């Protein structure tokens, strides 16, 4: 599913891997590390076809750089500046961890509390895991559920409670705590547990405990709040080789995993506070112990060994931050991505350096490379122009994806027919995880409907497989395959990437 592929990449955690596609362009070291930054950013923006981006740099508790480049919407002339609002996506996760930290500070929660101590109805597939999983676990991607289940919340009518209720049906794909597996729904659970312990919604907790005291007055936790805010970037994606504007997506039901919107100017407040051990302008926002908890490793994310990053030896996840060693320093980094937006927050606490990069396109990997080129300038290491490398890699990957699509079309078997008359496939199909998919017959064509959010006409592909072209372009096209039972009745359908939906038989109306 195209959308699934995309958010998979977008919400990629902390340490991003870039493949070595071309030789690095070496840049000469300059005395002023930021001298060529405007040129670097504008060039990256243009070459990666990003309509607008904004960057801010904090050093020694001062904002040494904050600028916007390009436009808020492709074809428009409203400029992006440091106050332009973007979706920060998964960079919201550290805010959720900080809210839990506040509850720990107030004695209303402990990091090692079982989640069920606060959400008694919370269940996972395995009873042992249900009993043992802690707040620390749900904030550090080690549930064993892997990076799955996103289609429970993405473009569904389910609220946070319903998303969490359904996750009990998600079978683990690795043994509990045995490996890293990026898990948005566990962050939703963390947010809901925090809301229960804090007596207010996650949105209210984030706003009153973090956004307001940090003076992040333009920031909010929902696209619903954007309507009354001016200076908002429009999301963009790539369709048919062109970068085009798309609608903001409401992801309120995944809020604690990624629904915060902010500007680089606002985000510098958050970054300054984290770099100062919890204080901003002399006011304590978080205890030093809380800030430390977010920054210590909880889950190993890989071997840490990567030929493109020979200076790195370890990579891990803290609570809402990816962690690694970088030229002998600790580096905190997290990326965020949701439809049409990609962002990165990076901190080097020992250097008292922080970087915020927000962009209004999801069709690039510059967000994951550019911060390294900037960090290298700031710490006096030789810049490696990973940005150019990323842009080249993106082009190669797009070509590979197009080729894969062509190959798939070629695999279509011609001259086959569905086993049954189209009307015999009609009915509701259900998955305990993802809910209902309705198949109906309209003007002689099968149509799939997912609640009132998604609709797709089904075109016969081959045998009992049909191709759905979804009304929401983010979902692209998907193959749906029906399977008959021994009676010759359509009993199940399988959506690629999501799994099996079982047909709901109405009582007494079985054939």
């Amino acid at each position, binding site marked *: 599913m195209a959308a699934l592929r995309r958010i998979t990449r977008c919400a990629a955690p902390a340490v991003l891997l870039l493949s070595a596609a071309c030789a690095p362009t070496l840049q000469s070291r300059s005395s002023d590390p930021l001298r060529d930054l405007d040129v670097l950013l504008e060039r990256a923006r243009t070459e990666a076809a990003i309509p607008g981006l904004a960057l801010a740099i904090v050093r020694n508790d001062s904002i040494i750089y904050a600028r916007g480049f390009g436009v808020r919407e492709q074809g428009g002339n409203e400029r992006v500046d440091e106050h332009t609002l973007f979706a920060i996506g998964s960079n919201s996760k550290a805010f959720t961890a900080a809210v839990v930290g506040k509850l720990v500070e107030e004695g209303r929660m402990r990091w*090692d509390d079982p989640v069920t101590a606060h959400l008694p109805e919370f269940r996972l597939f*395995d009873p*042992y*895991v249900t009993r*043992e999983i*802690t707040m*620390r*676990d749900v904030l550090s991607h*080690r549930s064993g559920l892997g990076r799955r289940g996103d289609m429970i919340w993405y473009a569904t009518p389910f609220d946070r409670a319903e998303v969490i209720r359904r996750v009990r049906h998600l079978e683990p794909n690795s*043994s*509990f*705590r*045995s490996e890293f597996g990026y898990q948005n729904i566990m962050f939703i659970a963390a947010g809901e547990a925090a809301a229960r312990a804090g007596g207010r919604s996650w949105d209210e907790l984030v706003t009153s405990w973090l956004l307001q005291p940090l003076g992040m007055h333009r920031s909010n936790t929902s696209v619903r709040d954007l309507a009354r805010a001016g200076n908002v970037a429009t999301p963009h994606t790539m369709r048919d080789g062109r970068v085009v504007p798309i609608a903001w997506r409401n992801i309120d039901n995944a809020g604690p995993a990624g629904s915060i919107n902010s500007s680089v100017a606002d985000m510098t407040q958050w970054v300054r506070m984290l770099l100062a051990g919890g204080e901003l302008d002399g006011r304590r926002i978080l205890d030093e112990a809380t800030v*430390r908890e977010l920054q*210590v*490793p*909880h*889950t*190993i994310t890989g*071997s*840490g*060994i990567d030929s493109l990053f020979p*200076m790195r*030896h*370890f990579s*891990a996840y803290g609570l809402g931050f990816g*962690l690694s*060693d970088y*030229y*002998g*320093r*600790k580096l905190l980094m997290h990326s965020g991505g949701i439809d049409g937006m990609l962002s990165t927050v990076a901190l080097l606490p*020992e250097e008292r350096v922080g970087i915020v990069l927000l962009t209004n396109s999801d069709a690039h990997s510059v967000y994951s490379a550019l911060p390294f080129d900037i960090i290298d300038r700031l710490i006096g290491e030789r810049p490696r122009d990973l940005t150019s490398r990323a842009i080249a890699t993106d082009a190669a990957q797009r070509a590979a994806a197009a080729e894969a699509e062509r190959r798939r079309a070629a695999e279509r078997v011609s001259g086959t027919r569905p086993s049954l008359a189209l009307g015999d496939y009609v009915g509701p199909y259900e998955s305990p995880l993802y809910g209902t998919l309705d198949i109906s017959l309209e003007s002689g064509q099968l149509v799939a409907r997912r609640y009132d959010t998604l609709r797709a006409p089904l075109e016969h592909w081959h045998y009992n497989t049909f191709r759905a072209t979804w009304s929401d372009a983010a979902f692209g096209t998907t193959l749906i395959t029906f399977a008959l039972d021994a009676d010759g009745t359509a009993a199940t359908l399988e959506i690629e990437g999501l799994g099996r939906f079982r047909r709901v038989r109405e009582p007494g109306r079985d054939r």
Partner: protein
Amino acid sequence: MLRGARFVLVLAVVFASAGSAHAQQLRGLDAYVEKAISEWEVPGLGLAIVHRDSVVYAKGFGVRKLGSAERVDENTMFAIGSSSKAFTALLLATLIDEGRAKWDDRVIEHLDWFQMFDPYVTREMTLRDLLSHRSGLSRGDLLWYGSDLTREDIVRRVRWLEPSWSFRSQFGYQNIMYLAAGEVAEELSGRSWDELVQERIFAPLGMRTSTTSIRPLASMSNVATPHSRIDGKVSPIAWRDIDNAGPAGSINSNVREMAAWVRLQLRRGEFNGHRIVSEANHREMWSPHTIIQIDTAAERLYPETHFRTYGLGWFLEDYRGRRLVHHGGNIDGMSALVAMMPEHDVGLVILTNMNGSGLPALLMRRIFDLYIDGPGRDWSAEILAYTKQRAEQAEARQAARDSARVRNTQPSLALDRYAGRYENRLYGDVVITYANGRLSATFGPAFQGSLEHWHYDTFRARWQDPQLGTTTLTFALNARGEPATLDVEGMGEFRRQQDTPTQAAGGTR
């Protein structure tokens, strides 16, 4: 139990690089080591350094036994303790190379009788888990230390060891899981762990005098004597037989032979062009598996390090922007360290005959600094000061505990009524006997001592073997006024058995 006993097979540390100018690079090292062993009160030390696949330094310092004139040299035998764990991990890697198992195999696929306290953990525990200290279990070392249980007996008992932490939630150093790994290796190969070490590692590396047991040491001439601080004075002690904990730490060797082991490691599983283990499975051992939290004190003391983790048989950490691979070993009277800094293609082995010494870890840093860019922090002096401060704090804590003794109390019962056999399903029996107006306690073959009344129904056992220190024992009475349970410090509750003779000597475990 065993407040005074420093038996825990543990840790240690890390490393450096340069050209052929070793003489120059290592100039001053001899004097540094001489001074350090004197300051740290280490009777004898062996040191070997490997650089670019060559042994560039191999030397002994001090004496094999305090009061004797026999010098330590590069051939002097020491216990390497837990540095043996990497040998066990490597044995499994060779068996995995042969396709007999996989790292993610469940333990129960190979040891069908293996059982942990929690059924989920029994089901999910993998070979990786056995080797990476994330079982959730702490303690249990008294199952093997000073006991006559076999390795298999010990692993079979672990089902009664209640977890201290939730499964895989944190690092918890666990020797018994290494015994289980040794049992798996035996099951896969049909050979004993000792034979496997001999055939698959010692023989191809030419480690001809190295052993997996203290027994062959008796017929060797150049062997260090273990030392420990007893009543404030560094004194020789007896070698401890830990054959029943072999895969967790029973190897004995010298720095010359251990240098071959370091060469094998730095060549990623190859020795003199001969491949012992595949590069891919060697990489697994050097990949982080379990995070070790660094506390704020350690963070301040060692700002060079941001990540501490455990691989499979190795500690892995960053040090001044480089990766360190290391493992120490501590068993009665011996402190060892094997450490490598692969980016500089350098490694070292430090073997000492002093109990629980911090010196090997510091000497490692000193030597690796030489390879990075010359002498750095004066680790020995800095950490010695810190260690002394910590020792004073520990003494103060002990004094505070001692002063918590309540004066003028009496045991509830006449002493002879406490006698009996007290049973714990994990550890077996503690037998309390009464003779000549005194109570005595016996636990296994090693722990025998008399009980001194402390306060109320609490007694303190002073073990005959001074290395074992003292242990607090508390009796609790039931409603009928009979002693019903005995709480043993560090071990838990033992229940009194009604059948028991009161004059028994010794007991089964």
